[in-house]
């Protein structure tokens, strides 16, 4: 089962195949939970978010289009949005770093440093490394941690316009490096 592609496993997950569903969840759970945790910063809330994201992925499986990208990117997109909803519904997250044993010990703005420790480096990570550090950190804070540019500006004491410029430059540069997938 484990040598099956994510997409094939997801097809089984979507159709209700018990074995495929179990294998799919176990394959993606670290990524889904990790992203949820990075955004909501609380282990219990992160589980709720991760569960909800996986249930929604099943519910909306028919909308996944492999031509638009990988199933993992799609699933993480759902996860990010569920997590951001969660954060917004209770107000912006409280600073709980250190208060929760499950919470990451890195500052969210240092998530780029977390990337350094990953052993499953793929093209995205390699390309993110190629970005100037300020741009990489700004993009990571916005895309992976769910902060607004204003929040990044306040936390880092950097002018808001500078943060916006960094994020824009970073995303454009990444896109250009990846080769635009214009549909």
């Amino acid at each position, binding site marked *: 089962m484990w040598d099956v592609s994510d997409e094939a496993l997801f097809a089984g997950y979507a159709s209700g195949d018990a074995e495929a569903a179990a294998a799919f969840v176990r394959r993606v759970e670290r990524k889904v939970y990790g992203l949820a945790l990075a955004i909501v910063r609380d282990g219990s809330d992160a589980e709720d978010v991760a569960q909800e994201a996986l249930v929604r992925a099943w519910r909306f499986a028919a909308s996944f289009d492999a031509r638009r990208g990988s199933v993992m990117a799609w699933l993480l*997109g759902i996860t990010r949005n569920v997590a951001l909803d969660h954060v917004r519904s209770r107000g912006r997250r409280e600073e709980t770093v250190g208060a929760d044993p499950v919470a990451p010990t890195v500052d969210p703005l240092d998530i780029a440093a977390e990337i350094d420790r990953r052993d499953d480096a793929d093209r995205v990570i390699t390309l993110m490394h190629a970005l100037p550090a300020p741009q990489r950190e700004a993009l990571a804070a916005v895309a992976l941690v769910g902060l607004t540019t204003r929040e990044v500006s306040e936390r880092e004491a950097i002018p808001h316009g500078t943060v916006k410029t960094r994020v824009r430059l970073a995303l454009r540069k990444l896109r250009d490096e990846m080769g635009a997938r214009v549909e």
Partner: protein
Amino acid sequence: MTSMRCADVREVAPDVALGLLTGEERAAALAHLEGCEACRAEVASLAGTADEVLLAAPGAAPPPGFADRVLARLAAERAGGGELPIVPASPDAPGHRSRRLPLLALAAAAVVLVIAGVVAIVRSGEEPATTTATAEMRTGRGTVVGVATVTGGEPATVEVAVPGWQETLERWDATHADTYWLAVETEDGTRTMQVADPAIEEWTMRVDAPAAEVSTVSVLDDAGRVWCSGRFAT
């Protein structure tokens, strides 16, 4: 609403792709994108990249038993599943990210406007200056989910009622857009947008145009997806 030019939209295209724009600025960008294929392609390209960035998120081991709990929830969902009352017009789905501006969705919006059915148009004999027209609000699949009426002379008043909207948002909107919009178009192509409070299921907006010239009304999310739409007979 301040209109945006291509250069303005290109500047903020990464913000659109990352879901960072809000309020009027987002509405202005979306209004431009609806009519500009080149800018849509730019945003779609950047949104694809934004999706890929998520792959760089650090993994973390979930609490023990996580997978079992997910599978149990899925089993419960399957047992209790039913037809969803509304589906968005887009073949690309609510599961996709709200910040994405799917070209297919925008194309589908045009289709919706074409296929939306007209129920009735009634001109009041007692008040010649007042027009009342009613249109069914339909999804992209043609399902009738609500009704829209336009009344008055100038300005016109457009009322839209979509019963079950709350449940729809809850059950369908995996991306849960920040903002929903009512968009009213008149025969000359002018579009007026107003935020549709997601906490209610009936909305009213005034349009600076004669009621008889109001042609369509749509409910959009902030990704530009048309959730339902109606066309008035003219």
